[in-house]
């Protein structure tokens, strides 16, 4: 099909279809509405399931039901809606079901605003709901990357039997870029779904989908089993990109659309004779701690840039364990930082450490 120009929300919707999504359940919320709108047209036409639910809570519980019956399921929402969905997300993780959740983030807290934000970083990277669990969380910076990661996310969800979160912001949801939907994405080694509770007792023995463990020892074992998954994600599936790092003297740490803006900033910095790299987490859970070990020795200062008030700083501190000076620049309220602001932040950080 070659490259086509699509709006972010629509491109992500089509990517889900390409990724084999069987069913979508969702509830309207700005700025992600084009996503369900697109799917309402194209899922049913392809014999797949589309339901606009009565609430965010119902939507995620429909996801839980369909995932339990063996479907590749998607839901999408934006920050306040994702907060409502946490009930179902923890059940999905607890019952070890695969599902893909797209969060097109907007500003908060509360009703906040509808403009782009990265304000859900903590909620996304700490599980979000009750209990000990995490989401494999991907933060693409372009539509092409979003499309590729969404296609692959269904594989990852099936592989881990765990929800996968696609964390983008209103900027990625609303912008248009050319995208190639035929990129090959990684195929994961998947086992047949012999655990489904779809009622089809002619093809399998009785299955129970459940997150209730009434014996403390059973629950502890279950928690440890889940932990093993998260340990495996951390050990083997951290993803990140190092940009312009070879001769860098200072580096920016940024994910999603913020890293995109940082790319322009480092070009402007180069014109001023400053060689600045970017460490771009692609997985925000597991956080790419390995990347920090690869930073050049010359890089002593890291400037964390986010569209929030510094939620990623803790993770950067844990990853560096005091070896670097951590600086921060952020914009909130739906205001997207301009490249020049990031340039100033880097120069300021550089100046401070040279004093």
């Amino acid at each position, binding site marked *: 099909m070659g490259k086509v120009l699509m709006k972010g929300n629509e491109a992500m919707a089509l990517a889900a279809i390409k990724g084999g999504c*069987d*069913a979508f*359940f969702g509830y309207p919320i700005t700025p992600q509405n084009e996503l369900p709108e697109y799917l309402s047209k194209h899922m049913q036409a392809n014999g797949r*399931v589309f*339901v606009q*639910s*009565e*609430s965010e*809570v*119902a*939507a995620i*519980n*429909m*996801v*839980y*039901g*369909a*995932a*339990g*019956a*063996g*479907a590749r*399921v998607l839901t999408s929402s934006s920050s306040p809606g994702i907060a409502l969905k946490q*009930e*179902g997300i923890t*059940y999905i993780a607890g*019952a070890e079901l695969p599902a893909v959740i797209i969060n097109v983030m907007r500003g908060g807290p509360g009703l906040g605003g509808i403009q782009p934000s990265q304000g859900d970083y903590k909620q996304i990277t700490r599980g979000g709901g009750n209990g000990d669990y995490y989401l494999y969380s991907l933060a693409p910076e372009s539509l092409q990357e979003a499309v590729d990661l969404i296609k692959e996310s269904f594989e990852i969800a099936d592989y881990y039997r765990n929800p996968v979160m696609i964390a983008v912001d209103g900027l990625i949801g609303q912008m248009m870029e050319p995208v190639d939907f035929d990129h090959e994405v990684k195929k994961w080694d998947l086992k047949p779904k012999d655990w*489904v*509770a*779809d*009622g*089809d*007792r*002619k093809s399998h023995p*009785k*299955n*129970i*989908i*459940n*997150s*209730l463990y*009434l014996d403390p020892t059973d629950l502890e074992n279950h928690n440890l089993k889940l932990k093993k998954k998260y340990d495996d994600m951390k050990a083997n599936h951290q993803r990140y990109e190092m940009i312009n790092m070879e001769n860098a003297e200072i580096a920016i740490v940024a994910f999603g659309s913020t890293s995109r803006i940082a790319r322009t900033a480092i070009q402007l910095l180069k014109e001023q004779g400053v060689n600045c790299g970017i460490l771009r987490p692609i997985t925000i859970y597991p956080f790419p701690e390995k990347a920090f070990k690869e930073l050049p020795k010359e890089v002593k200062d890291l400037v964390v840039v986010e569209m929030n008030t510094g939620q990623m700083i803790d993770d950067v501190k844990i990853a560096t364990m005091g070896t670097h000076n951590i600086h921060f620049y952020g914009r909130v309220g739906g205001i997207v930082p301009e490249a020049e602001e990031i340039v100033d932040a880097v120069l300021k950080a550089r100046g401070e450490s040279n004093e």
Partner: protein
Amino acid sequence: MSNTKIVYEKSKALEDVHLSYCPGCTHGVIHKLVAESLVELDILDRAVGISSVGCSALNYDFFTCDMQQAAHGRAPAVATGIKRFKPDSIVFTYQGDGDLGSIGIAEAIHAAHRGENMTIVFVNNAIYGMTGGQMAPTTLIGQKTTTSPEGRTEAQAGLPLRIAELMATIPGATYIERVSVHDPKHVMKAKKALKKAFEIQKNKQGFSLIEFISTCPVNWGMTPKKAVDWAVDNMIPYFPLGVYKDKLAGENK
């Protein structure tokens, strides 16, 4: 031995396990009716049951079909997910009055509203049993519970919610009936209603809900016999038995 024959045996839709219900509780009877209906309609091998939160939360261990456990009140949404993906499955939820009538009323109404081809087994015992006898939306006026220690009053908690009547007003619903299991005659009637509900689903004719008047001797503070009498004397007058909606018969009482 040729003149011996089996005249009764446990339904093959029920596991051979000890049910977690107190003596005198009618959950056991209702489980039996669900099980027998699934077997008699030959739909057991494509059934998925949704366990809810309440005293019946563990019934994923009791039925022999596939089961999925749902969050409090969300069983109809979970059922929707399964049914839409597997339209040929037979999906039922098993919910109490707190689960369906309170925290999950939206999910129940909207499953009916969409005309989901599923069956809700709704057990109304006018109290939260599992959490220790708190007031439910169906708790009667004057009924004492741990959160209405002086008896429920209209001023404080409103009038008890009549679920069958409410659900019958939803245009998307196909069949709504309220039954009771307080004596053999009514058990037979209840079975007929439940079987009809499953048959409607089997024929892909839409949403059905059967409300069972049930008892909770422990939290009502009564012996099982007294509890049954109390249900007959107090619940049934406020929650009259009968068919509240039968779209297929063209009648809508």
